[in-house]
């Protein structure tokens, strides 16, 4: 797959308006369901993957050769802790704020709904898509005969807003990631996402 060509941010701005129009029609919980369904469909449309061992998978992950890194440039902090430097949605959002104005409140409202009902790691609507996509995509990736599992540790948006997994879950995830709380806070200074991949 390697690195994809960059999208035209206008298409993303149009999609934001598409989602805002949808929110007017189906409400915030409806939009949340829609975004989750959308991300799952996207993952289901991508071919399944199998890798012999974790090392081979990590090499593919770093090179953008797996669906889990198809849309974002990632680096691996440890064998299981992955960070995304810039959100794949940042260009579209910047174009929106530059050309249109401040982001519609619907994007925040749906994230609040998601944080309350699913997991408290979304700053806006786009993170619902990204995090649901990663979770659904991971189930389609096999490493050494085992299904990959994914969890979001923390999210930082371009404007500095951040959401971090709850205390109990975070403790467990940091052990899986092989990093400390201090290291996590360091990573959050200049990265958009911190996430964990592992197999049982």
């Amino acid at each position: 797959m390697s690195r994809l060509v960059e999208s035209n941010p206008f298409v993303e701005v149009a999609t934001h308006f598409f989602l805002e129009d949808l929110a007017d029609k189906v409400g915030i919980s409806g939009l949340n369901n829609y975004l989750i369904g959308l991300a799952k469909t996207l993952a289901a449309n991508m071919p399944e993957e199998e890798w012999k061992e974790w090392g081979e998978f990590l090499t593919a992950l770093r090179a953008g050769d797996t669906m889990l890194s198809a849309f974002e440039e990632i680096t691996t902090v440890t064998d299981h802790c992955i960070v995304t430097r810039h959100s794949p949605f940042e260009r579209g959002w910047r174009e929106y704020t530059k050309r249109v104005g401040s982001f519609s409140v619907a994007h925040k409202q749906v994230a609040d709904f998601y944080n309350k009902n699913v997991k408290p790691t979304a700053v806006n609507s786009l993170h619902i898509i990204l995090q649901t996509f990663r979770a659904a995509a991971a189930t389609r990736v096999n490493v050494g005969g085992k299904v990959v599992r994914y969890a979001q540790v923390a999210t930082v948006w371009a404007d500095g807003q951040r959401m971090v997994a709850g205390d109990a879950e975070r403790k467990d995830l940091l052990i899986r990631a092989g990093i400390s709380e201090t290291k996590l806070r360091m990573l959050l200074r200049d990265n958009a996402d911190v996430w964990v991949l592992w197999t049982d």
Partner: protein
Amino acid sequence: MLDVALVSLINDLSEKAGADGVIQFWQRVGENLASRMGKEAYLGWPSFNVAVREGRTAFSIEGETLTLTDMAIMDIDGDVVGYLYALKQCVFLPTILRVRYTSGDLPRADREVAQEYNESQHDIAICNFCVFHERFREEVAKNITVAGQPLTCLLLATRGFTGETKISPKNLPKVGINPEHVRALLRNYECVYALEMRGAKLREER
């Protein structure tokens, strides 16, 4: 990834609301986006064209827009009342490539929406995004004045990823430009449109 997800969204929406439902949806989104971008006023065509070149107009959200300064539109008195503008690359092309390299083919809905639009409204769409695009530009043009006159936008020609071209049978006569001339423009551009002063009385076809 949002653009690739959008393609799935179109497919889903088309299954639920039909191709005509997607068209209505896209047109409403185009109107909403244009209305959020606000009004603009320019002293004359030179200042507007400089703003286009420097990416300061609402049209600039599409990416690099070129003013074809050799393609001025004149009225019956010989005054310039508009120009042709072009995009080197269709804004949806990167998305088509991204879909190709992640999930495979564009879904059937993309073609169906374009086809429905061509049959029911304006035979100019190459892909579903053209539907949004045309309405967006029309609405933006209404919000821009040049020398005090509001503009009107006419989509003239499009060229798709596979080489398919469309030249508007509806809009070309309105700007008085020969179809062969526009066909030649499509060798180098993927989307050609005209902006002209609303209500201008044009010269005969060139």
